[in-house]
């Protein structure tokens, strides 16, 4: 989900801060990993009943030139907010940071999050703390992420960096100009399958889903594909019947997709197919044979036999069987190699 907002970044004169102590306000790109967002959402669920919003620390990786920040992990930090003052548990934040760095030495502090879209004086205060020197992210700008968790509305995520603002140094300490920055949610190949399972639970009443076996997952995927083919063919039919507006671009796209079907000789397919199916079946057969053999060997070794001689005999016979199995395996690997070569050729 990339936010469709566009951003225009303007350089502007900085506030009256001592030279060299102001963090840069160069634009940067924020990449958010889903698990970071998930833990923010989880934290927001676990807030105290009287709390409007909760805050926490963002950890992640900053690219070398500082133009991209990846938010990977977050942890919650306790804080109390009243009308005229805010208290953040700094001791806790420090300890937790140390604990996290122990397990994830590569990740660094990159900023903080809050679970409401509102930016107020307290936000500025906290922002200045996180971007400050010493414990903060200085000289890099601290990223502030707001994730709105109001019931009944969309979960809205925004990323900001800040620039100092204010005419005097005292004013500058508790104010900040938040500059929105673009962000995207990105996830890797391995996370995709996890997200898929999580997504499978989204329509269920109980919000729960069991984990699919291979064949179930395949079934689902095939059903999805069939559904899509259905949709496309319905569209094409309605275009032919002149019910839907035609589009050259779509037609071209579909034609390109159809052209992807490989043209191969039936004999080749037949051969490849047979080779591969044999490979698969042989491996499956062997795997199960090995399993049975081992189980048998274990049973014989611990069965209620008289003693020594018999059990010894049983085992040597067993071992012979295994050798046979191994020879079979070697042969199998050869066929496999050969079929691999064929596939390449």
């Amino acid at each position, binding site marked *: *989900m990339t936010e469709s907002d566009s951003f225009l970044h303007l350089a502007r004169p900085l506030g009256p801060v001592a030279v060299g102590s102001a963090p840069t306000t160069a634009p940067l790109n924020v990449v958010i990993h*889903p*698990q970071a*967002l*998930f833990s923010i*959402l*989880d934290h927001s*669920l*676990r807030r*105290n009943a009287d709390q409007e919003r*909760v805050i926490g620390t963002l950890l992640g990786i900053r690219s070398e030139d500082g133009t991209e920040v990846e938010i990977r992990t977050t942890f919650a930090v*306790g804080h109390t907010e009243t009308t005229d003052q805010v208290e953040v548990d700094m001791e806790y934040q420090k300890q*937790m940071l140390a*604990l996290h760095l122990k*397990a*994830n030495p590569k990740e660094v502090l990159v900023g903080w999050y809050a679970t409401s879209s509102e930016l107020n004086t307290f936000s500025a205060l906290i922002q200045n703390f996180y971007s400050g020197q010493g414990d903060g992210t200085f000289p890099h700008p601290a990223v502030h992420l707001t994730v709105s968790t109001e019931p009944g509305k*969309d*979960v809205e995520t925004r990323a900001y960096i800040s620039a100092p603002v204010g005419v005097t140094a005292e004013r500058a300490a508790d104010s900040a100009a938040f500059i929105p920055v673009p962000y995207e*949610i990105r996830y890797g190949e*391995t996370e995709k*399958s*996890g997200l898929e399972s*999580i997504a499978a*639970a*989204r329509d269920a009443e109980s*919000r*729960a889903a*069991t*984990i*699919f076996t*291979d*064949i179930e997952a*395949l079934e689902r*995927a095939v059903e999805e594909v069939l559904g899509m083919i259905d949709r496309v063919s319905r569209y094409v039919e309605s275009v032919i019947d002149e019910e839907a*507006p035609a589009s*050259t*671009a779509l037609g071209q796209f579909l034609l390109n997709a159809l052209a992807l079907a490989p043209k*191969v000789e*039936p004999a080749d*397919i037949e051969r490849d197919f047979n080779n*591969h199916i044999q490979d*698969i079946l042989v*491996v*499956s057969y*062997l*795997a*199960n044979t*090995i*399993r049975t053999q*081992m*189980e048998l*060997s*274990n049973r014989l070794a*611990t069965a209620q036999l008289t003693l020594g001689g018999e059990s*010894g005999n049983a085992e040597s016979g067993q071992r012979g069987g*295994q050798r046979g199995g*191994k020879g079979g*395996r070697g042969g199998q690997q050869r066929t*496999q190699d050969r079929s691999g070569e064929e*596939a390449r050729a």
Partner: protein
Amino acid sequence: MAEKEIPLTAVKVDALVVMKIIKHSSQAFPTTATGSIVGMDVDGDLEITNSFPFPVVEMPAESHFDNTAPNPAAAAPRAKANVAYQTEMIRMLREVNVDANNVGWYTSANMGNFFNMNVIENQFFYQKEMNERTVAVVHDVSRSAQGSVSLRAFRLSSKFMAAFKENKFTSEELQKSNLRHQDIFVELPVEIHNSHLINSFIHQLQCPNQSSPTDLPPSLAALEKGPFVKENVLAPNYDNLSLSIDPFLEKNCDLLLDSIETHHTETNNFQYYQRSLAREQSKITAWQAKRKAENASRATLKQPLLPEDEWQRLFKLPQEPSRLETMLNTRQVEQYSRQVDSFVSATTSKMFAVKGNLLPGETAK
């Protein structure tokens, strides 16, 4: 503990934990990643609501079995430093209202190779020292990369716990207890559970707000760049449909070969033991016969008899090797073959589908 009577029946994993475990294990891949999980036990359902990784520390191998490759991360859950780390972390988490009960640990695996001593010792440690009601969650990185996430939860059976505590893995003991390789682990069904917020967030992630019907794209380039041709759509994951057979089979064959190798070594050990046992026993009988003959001659000469049970001091019977490794190996092979079976079932259908598609005439007949 009154609720102790209700056995654990299922494991409910929060979406957050799923993502955290996946992230940690794929980052650490191919080495093993381990961490701790926290949650709550609700009437036999173990709800796992948060997790955190363990720091990798160098530690001396304290295992009383020989580890072929001492892997600091794999042994991490029972390292002393990590127990302290875990208590500290849980204390911190309690302050921000996270369910602060340790309910076990997680580990990453590669192609289902997780039935090993490390896992057993870790889980044994957890079930014995920490809390009886703990689980080991195993995330298989390479299986997950193939399409469907592989997350499983295991516990050690009470039978195995009792045997492992006293290290009773000789043939005789196994005969008595009738402990088999199927009885080592108890697998618990895993369910993924979403919070309301995450649910709504995922719904939102899926369909970018489509209030107005979209215009038809003016050109092919516009279509390809458009907002709907995004790579990162969640639900249909077509990795399942890919037809890469050989790498998986090859890897499995390798692993099976290794297992056979292990099994072979173990049977050899056992045979060696039996041979030396037989040798010792024949020596003893020889000695006993000799002593008897001597005593008989002494009796005729009216001399005091020599004791006949001295052989117990003179000869030492060899120690029987533990059968645990063999049992584990068998369990591991079973896991591999199950894995192959499930892969084969999916792949054959895919292959027939491809064949039917490329040779339309064949299927019509």
